[in-house]
């Protein structure tokens, strides 16, 4: 199924779509308030973009610097070219540690590598400890948003899930009660876990350390209670110096949720006595994206989710309609680089309004890249016959003013006099689920000429 078809499923529940749309727009507004309160916000974005562009142009050197410094601090560094290698490395560490139970905090990379099902197939217990991720895990779903993984679920749905999995009492979806029950359950998991797996928000070449940001404190609960901590990062998470965190931490939470900073911004540099710290550095298609000049800057992304919250398509189609680990506008420029055929409908899931590019804290020209993917996809991937034919006809009409005028007149005539079943037929997508505007006499061209002659 393509994006439009999946979006249609999401749109069956109108009340839910409206809620989803408004809830995300509210987050966008909070982002605006937070951003407007920072002096030099635009300069911060420029700096962030410039630092990331430098990183990509010097990535090999910075990766080596990071590895050397991390090793000096007693961290073990692993390298994985793809998802399979990543999962195998983690399996190997878990097996060597004789681990049974694993707690995880949010990591879009491990989602991308499908680590959970892999580890479960090897017999490990894996628990996602971010509340939103925990909800989608027990619902056997995937996150529909990178910052708000369970934004597609109503509180009543969470209530039912918790009754089944945690034995909670029916509470009409009381968020305080449900959060507290999850807290109690997850505490037992933290206390008995052998290994904690976290993501990495930023890795610093200069110090060999890394920073993990959460609001819930779950990454820290996992990492400090388990004897072994494995942190997984894509190669693009690197920044040159610790002082650059000043730029990125000022941008990240404000762009993501409108908070001035996440509750916990934890700086890991060295394991404690008797504990182990591992870092897995992963490529999985990133160096290939690096080779594409037009799409390279998509690797600047710091995973704040602002482009999703602002996108009129995302808000009304839901994250699952993208059928990709990273949904929304940024996902739609990352995913085609991984599998052009599977994700060929994603760059079309946009009005090209440019709002995503305007809110992006690292200034990725997302909407321009969406447009560029469309140029590639229409050449490389077979398009539906109806779309092809209509676009061909439109092209001809637009190239001949007389033809265009005639077409306009006949459309106006049709909309006025043709029977409903014809106007609202399958061929006219614009008449789907809405009434077309009433047709007045005349057109813009006539109106303009009359005005000028006066």
């Amino acid at each position, binding site marked *: 199924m393509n994006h439009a078809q999946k979006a249609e499923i999401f749109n069956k529940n109108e009340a839910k779509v409206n809620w989803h749309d408004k809830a995300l727009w509210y*987050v966008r507004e909070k982002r605006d308030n937070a951003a407007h309160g*920072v*002096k*030099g916000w635009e300069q*911060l974005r420029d700096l962030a973009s*410039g*630092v990331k562009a*430098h990183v990509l*142009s*010097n*990535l090999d050197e910075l990766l080596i610097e990071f590895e050397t410094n991390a090793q000096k*601090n007693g961290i073990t560094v*692993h*390298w994985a*070219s793809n998802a399979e290698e990543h999962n195998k490395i983690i399996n190997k560490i878990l097996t060597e540690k004789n681990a049974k139970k694993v707690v995880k905090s949010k990591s879009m990379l491990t989602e991308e590598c499908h680590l959970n099902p892999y580890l479960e197939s090897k017999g490990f217990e894996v628990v996602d*400890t971010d*509340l*939103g991720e925990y*909800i989608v895990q027990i619902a056997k779903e995937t996150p529909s948003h990178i910052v*708000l*993984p*369970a934004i597609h*679920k109503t*509180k009543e749905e969470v209530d039912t899930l918790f009754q089944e999995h945690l034995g909670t009492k029916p509470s009409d*979806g009381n968020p*305080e009660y*449900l*959060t507290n029950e999850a*807290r109690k359950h*997850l505490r037992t998991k*933290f*206390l008995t876990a052998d290994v904690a797996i976290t993501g990495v928000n930023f890795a610093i070449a200069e*110090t060999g350390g890394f920073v993990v940001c959460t609001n*819930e*404190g*779950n990454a*820290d609960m996992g990492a*400090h209670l388990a004897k072994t901590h494995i942190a997984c990062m894509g190669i693009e998470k690197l920044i040159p110096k610790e*002082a*650059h*965190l000043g*730029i990125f*931490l*000022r941008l990240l939470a404000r762009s993501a949720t409108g908070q*001035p*900073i*996440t*509750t*916990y*911004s934890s*700086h890991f*540099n060295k394991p*404690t*006595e008797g504990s182990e710290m591992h870092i897995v550095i992963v*490529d999985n298609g990133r*160096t*290939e994206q*690096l080779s594409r*000049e037009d799409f*390279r800057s998509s690797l600047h992304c710091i995973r704040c989710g602002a482009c999703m919250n602002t996108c009129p398509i995302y808000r009304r189609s839901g994250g699952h309609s993208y059928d990709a680990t990273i949904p929304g506008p940024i996902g739609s420029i990352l995913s085609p680089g991984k599998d052009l055929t599977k994700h060929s409908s994603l760059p079309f899931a946009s009005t090209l309004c440019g709002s995503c590019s305007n809110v992006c804290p690292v200034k990725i020209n997302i909407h321009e890249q969406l447009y560029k993917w469309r140029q590639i996809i229409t050449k490389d991937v077979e398009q539906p016959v109806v779309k092809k034919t209509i676009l061909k006809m439109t092209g001809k009409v637009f190239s001949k003013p007389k033809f265009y005028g005639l077409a306009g007149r006949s459309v106006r005539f049709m909309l006025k006099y043709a029977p409903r079943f014809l106007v609202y037929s399958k061929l006219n997508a614009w008449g789907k689920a809405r009434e077309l505007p009433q047709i007045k006499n005349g057109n813009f061209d006539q109106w303009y000429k009359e005005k000028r002659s006066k």
Partner: protein
Amino acid sequence: MGREEILNSVRKNKPELLPLPEINADLFNEDIDLLSGFKEKVPLVGGTIKQLTSPKDIDNEITMMYPNATNIVNRTQVSSLGTVSISDKTQPKDLEDVDLAILRGTFGVAENGAIWISEEQFYIRALPFITNDLLIILDKKDICQNLHEAYELISKRKRTFGLFISGPSKTADIEQCLVIGAQGALSLTVLLI
């Protein structure tokens, strides 16, 4: 395995070297009162903040705020309320039943209400997260404007583990309703002296 393959692929695909931009901190300087800025931000991130007139009031204040706390870890010189002592023999799991942890903060950040705390202050890394409630004592002189200044202040530290902490643990993962108290401490109180 992956290492050489990845590095070679980066070398082949990366663009020509682009300059690393300089941070001009002057661009972000604001003429604000640091103390009142910080005091405004802490409640916004879900924390409680109180300014004491004398350090002698610390223990009274804490007892009033947390009357039911019995297992207390105190890591400061200015309070004497500690009931649970920790040492290098302490396992993080032993802290499961800690009601309150009292720590000293290194400095606060006016722009976001965050406080830098590091391993020297809490000793066992799990402490600020596993404790039921967390109280940080901060000198009112130790407040900087923004994160650019903050990173300058911690640039010479011993790097093991440390964090910016801003308010109590929280989540909005159920229908975007903000709930204070997710997996970490349920409350954060800042006492300014």
